[in-house]
């Protein structure tokens, strides 16, 4: 039995697939196993990440202090203007509120904060305890909205009511309350909304700039450098572009149903997917503007002519190295598999916290024989896989990093705290540079597990 198999819980065996051993079949979207140390968070987390980058809204967490404290300014979602999202607001519920209810405190906190910050809207996040004590968020929000004349929107994000996915859904429902309430005059025919990009390290600005060069206007960034008024008029755009579909496709579907706006799934990571996203948009608008195809080709060509020679330098060193991927949503995993291939590297393990069966099936399609595909993994399993596959680099977030480092494996931060853009063509170069700087570092030769090999 391999080291990895020894740590796999019986209950979880269906959530792990080794390509080539048996026909593809995978369990997913299950509740996390108690005691397994899942890397997943909760419903609240899902809502918080999606809504967080709306920078001119007040984000008030109704609950005890932890939920707000652990999400205070930890994400790299940049704003080009207001930065209200970087403050951590809480009602800091106390025992007495739990006994007598927290509605009055919520009302007073909301009023106080709206008076102080004059936000364009307020989101009120429900937490575990609020779901239990039964505060009527809806009515408090309605009351404050009337008094303060701004949208005040409850987010049904009680932590225990599912996992991150349900949180995404609650966030989409909350945002949808804003959509369709603004004035759409002046929006041109070639226009898009960007959904599911969080403007980490300014990534969204790179993408917006590409669209601008193509002649396409971005109406609302929605989930990155977001603005309330943009979201209110987002229904005036011709097309919704959905990245990170797990998080925001529900909003796109609602907008399609109510406003007839079609949507396309895209990814801005890696050369292939980035180019594909631009071509898809060009294709969509070619009837309205035939010249867009040529402009887009030229844009991609210009970018690639700069990028490819640079990438080759890294590829020379990285060729044949092995990579493992464990990320929140599966969409990123697809792009990463392709991005590693472009660097001549082999992906030997890939997993996500909240992928769907369809996601994993697609991953199964594009990965090599022997690749481990895993859903909702945990540190023991991940460490086992890294060792078994003798990986050179692991891509993940903060919680995955120490697993890699303790095993003497390189690491690439691909989560929401990152400080450098990994999207777009320039992002691919940054990604290659980061992978290179970790894989090629001399430090590994001192690490006990890799000493002899280095």
């Amino acid at each position: 039995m391999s080291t990895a198999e020894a740590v796999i819980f019986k209950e979880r065996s269906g959530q792990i697939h080794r390509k080539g051993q048996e026909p593809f079949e995978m369990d997913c979207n299950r509740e996390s196993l108690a005691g397994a140390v899942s890397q997943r968070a909760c419903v609240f987390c899902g809502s918080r990440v999606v809504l967080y980058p709306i920078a001119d809204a007040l984000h008030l967490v109704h609950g005890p202090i932890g939920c707000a404290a652990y999400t205070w300014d930890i994400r790299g979602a940049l704003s080009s203007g207001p930065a209200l999202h970087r403050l951590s607001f809480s009602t800091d519920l106390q025992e007495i509120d739990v006994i007598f209810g927290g509605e009055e405190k919520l009302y007073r906190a909301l009023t106080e904060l709206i008076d102080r910050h004059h936000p364009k809207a307020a989101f009120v996040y429900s937490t575990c305890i609020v779901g239990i004590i039964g505060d009527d968020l809806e009515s408090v929000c309605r009351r404050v909205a009337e008094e303060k004349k701004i949208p005040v929107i409850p987010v049904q994000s009680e932590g225990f009511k599912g996992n991150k996915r349900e949180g995404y859904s609650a966030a989409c429902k909350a945002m949808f309350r804003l959509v369709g309430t603004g004035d759409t005059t002046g929006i041109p025919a070639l226009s898009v909304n960007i959904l599911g990009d969080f403007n980490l390290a300014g990534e969204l600005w790179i993408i917006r700039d590409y669209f601008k060069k193509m002649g396409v206007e971005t109406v609302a960034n929605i989930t990155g450098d977001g603005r309330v008024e943009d979201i209110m008029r987002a229904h005036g755009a011709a097309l919704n572009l959905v990245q990170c579909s797990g998080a925001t496709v529900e909003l796109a579907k609602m907008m399609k149903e109510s406003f007839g706006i079609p949507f396309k799934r895209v990814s801005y990571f890696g050369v292939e997917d980035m180019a594909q996203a631009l071509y898809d948009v060009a294709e969509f608008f070619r009837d309205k503007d035939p010249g867009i195809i040529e402009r887009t080709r030229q844009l991609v060509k210009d970018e690639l002519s700069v990028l490819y020679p640079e990438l080759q330098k890294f590829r020379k060193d990285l060729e044949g190295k092995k990579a493992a991927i464990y990320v929140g949503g599966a969409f990123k995993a697809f792009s990463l598999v392709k991005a590693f291939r472009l660097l001549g590297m082999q992906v030997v393990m890939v997993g996500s916290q909240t992928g769907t069966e369809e996601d994993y099936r697609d991953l199964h399609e594009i990965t090599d024989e022997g690749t481990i595909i895993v859903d909702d993994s945990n540190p023991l399993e991940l460490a086992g896989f890294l060792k078994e596959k003798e990986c050179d680099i692991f891509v993940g977030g903060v919680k995955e990093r120490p697993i890699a480092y303790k095993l003497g494996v390189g690491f690439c931060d691909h989560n929401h705290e990152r400080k450098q853009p990994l999207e777009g063509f320039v992002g691919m170069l940054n990604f290659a540079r980061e992978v290179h700087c970790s894989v090629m570092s001399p430090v590994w030769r001192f690490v006990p597990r890799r000493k002899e090999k280095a």
Partner: protein
Amino acid sequence: MERSSYTSTTNACKLCKPLGACLAFRGIEGAVPMLHGSQGCATYMRRYIISHFREPMDIASSSLGEKHAVYGGGPNLKQGLQNVMAKFGAKLIGVATTCLTETIGDDVPMIVKEFRNEMRQSGVLQLPALVTVSTPSYSGTHMEGFHAAVRAVVEQLSDDRSCAHMLNLLPGFLSPEDLRYLKEVVDDFRYPSVILPDFSMTLDGPALEDCEKIPRGGTPIEDIRRMGGADATFEFGSTLEDCQTAGKYLDKHFGVVLHGMGIPIGIRETDVFFGALEQLSGKECPEKHALEKGRLIDSYVDAHKYLFGKRAVVYGEEDMVVALTSFLCEVGITPVLCASGGRSGRFEQAIERVTAGIAPQSPAVHEGMDFQEIEELARGLSPDLLIGHSKGYTLARKLGIPLVRVGFPIHDRFGGQRILHVGYRGTQSLLDRIVNALLEGSQNESPVGYAYM
């Protein structure tokens, strides 16, 4: 000084109770902390703690879902315990509750008792130690959670009254480097000791051949069992009068004499610690440490003109703030605001104790503060520096003054787990860092570009 009374909290200067409990459990040999609640709590806390220590921090969760919130989380908790036993091989599982499970009314000690019986009936005789602690996030901060967990461990494990020639050292929440130093000091007095908790290895471990399921190190459970027979307990913290601590339990239940003392930072508080060690051991302070004290006093003199009259805002956990304030007064820095998110009710009095007769004025002292309030007060006080954890960075940046990073969390610098705060040596290091932060500030501001400060 008047403080405005807000209903809302903005940028809290505290963390939630279960986080403290998880940290304390992490300092016990072979232990896995486990939260009885929804999955998010464990994950959020892991991430917060990992970002500071840069070490693995596994916290198991009973991962409650909606139906468990309705019908009770007992079955999940039991399943979780079993899984942690099976895959981690834990010697101890420390179960802390969360606001969810406290509010739905799960009786965790009962559930664990049932679990023990069920295991026994199914023939599993070797169970790990199972310690439970109640840590509802809506009452108290991470520090109350930390102390509650340490007490729970002692209450539930210390069962051996037989005389053990040793010292119980309950340091509270210090850095791994602090814990290593404290061990060294007590060892230098050649006095046997048990330090609880001790995450000097578990949260700052060496590179090894493998990623250990449970990192080595931590207070041995066998030692914890014998704490009731120890010669004395030293417990750090100046605001613990009303807190049900492990030290008080050992004193009351086993008659182990409790010496409560402040966290030893600065000469006066460190003298108290060394004095107590001298008395207990009947030995004089070892020369190594006497020399460190001598060098510290020497550098107080060397530094005094850089520091006199400089105005400092100190924030963070109450006991840490008290200790830092005590030290700052000794070198002529004027603490103008001492702030904490905690509410022990003893903060002001503790600050008074360490500032009386040495500070030119009493600082403003406020419990239950957030960074919104700290900022409002600080603006009117024209401070020259901030001392506290890295969540004060935004304020330091706004005020254009240096921030000397201490305590937890340090999320924006490297090596937070290796900051030494305590003892003559730790004070020396703090002093050097504070002087240099001020020198760097005035050097950068000067149009001359002095290369000689």
